[in-house]
């Protein structure tokens, strides 16, 4: 039974919760079982945020991820906190624009992506999360790109369709970067 368990973490403003929602949304559209669980509480606003996403073929029990197939760390505190959650052989995606250090894990696959810089090139820091999502798409079979694109369209809604291009470009940039380094 295939089950993808993702932890995505970063600063409040980095759209990390949205990244997770897009994944869950995409998974749902592919008829998969999905859960999305955010950190919450007063200490969250303006502070660090993280979410757990599970995409599975079977009914999902615990929605809290203790053994992650992939951890996405958008800043250093997130890496410090969640590095150990990656299961052996799993993925660790770092935002190298903000994370100064390399991973200390040798039993996992690590990919460092300067998502802020890439997003900057794409024209807005605010799509950094989508760049990271693209990178993830390139490495994982969890969901199809098409589903993610529909998810983005749905989330933007009729009002914000003008933001679609920049998001799609960001997605592609992320995919491109990840595939490049993979090759």
């Amino acid at each position, binding site marked *: 039974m295939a089950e993808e368990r993702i932890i995505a973490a970063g600063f409040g403003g980095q759209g990390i919760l949205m990244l997770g929602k897009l994944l869950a949304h995409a998974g749902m559209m592919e008829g998969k079982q999905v859960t999305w669980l955010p950190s919450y509480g*007063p*200490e969250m*606003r*303006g502070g660090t945020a993280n979410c757990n996403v599970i995409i599975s073929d079977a009914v999902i029990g615990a929605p809290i991820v203790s053994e992650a197939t992939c951890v996405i760390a958008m800043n250093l505190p997130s890496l410090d906190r969640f590095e150990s959650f990656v299961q052996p052989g799993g993925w660790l995606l770092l935002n190298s624009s903000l994370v100064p250090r390399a991973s200390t894990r040798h039993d996992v696959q690590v990919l460092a992506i300067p998502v802020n810089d890439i997003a900057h090139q794409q024209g807005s820091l605010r799509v950094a999360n989508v760049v990271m999502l693209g990178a993830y798409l390139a490495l994982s079979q969890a969901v199809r790109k098409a589903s993610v694109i529909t998810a983005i369209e749905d989330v933007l809604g009729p009002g914000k369709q003008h933001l679609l291009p920049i998001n799609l470009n960001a997605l592609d940039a992320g995919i491109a970067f990840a595939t490049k380094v993979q090759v």
Partner: protein
Amino acid sequence: MKTVYQKSAGLTGVPMHYCPGCTHGIIHKLVAEALVELDVLGRAVAVAPVGCAVFAYEYFNCDAQQAAHGRAPAVATGIKRVRPDNIVFTYQGDGDLASIGMAEIVHAAMGGENITVVFVNNAIYGMTGGQMAPTTLVGQPTTTSPLGRSRLGQGAPLRVCEMLATIEATAYIARVSVHSIPRLNVAKRALKKALQLQVENKGFSLVEVLSTCPTNWGLSPVDALRWVEQNMIPAYPLGVFKDIEGGT
């Protein structure tokens, strides 16, 4: 060279958790300075509310009790009746004091309880994420009044000072603001006077301080100060509403 200004000894120095530019921090400083200048810090007991100021017990450099939401005046009454020589003050938000805690504040005032209330009015529920408060301005959008508070069905902002000033046993009721240095100086004098009256066993004193919530107002801290001046003060006129000593 002499020190013109430094962190008050009335504060523990524990870094405060408030959002950037939130004036809760300024109000904490003023209260702390007043306690030090009146030389009552050592016998002061703070009563922390439920609200963003819940951690006030970490910040004021004196003993403290954390009270249930809205009940700080009752808790303060309990403390003061047991230890009349302590200087007991509550620090309460507008949801805490003007909504769920309305009965407690009115009755502490009615009983002329010899306590001091610092009432921080930021026209919103900060801690829970920006819901409507009884003090929310008409037209002000919040997460539970998405189209803005409407007079019809939600009424007009509650003016706590004006209401409590009608109660005979109150000693001092004032509304101040901290959006500018001159205002901030007035605010400090009001807080000192309120506490001084308690020292003199004159009875119930309350100082309402207009405050900001940049995070839930969706404004920068600087714009939030302006919003206080331009929108809140017209709805909440500053001034002294009750002073048993007649003066202002």
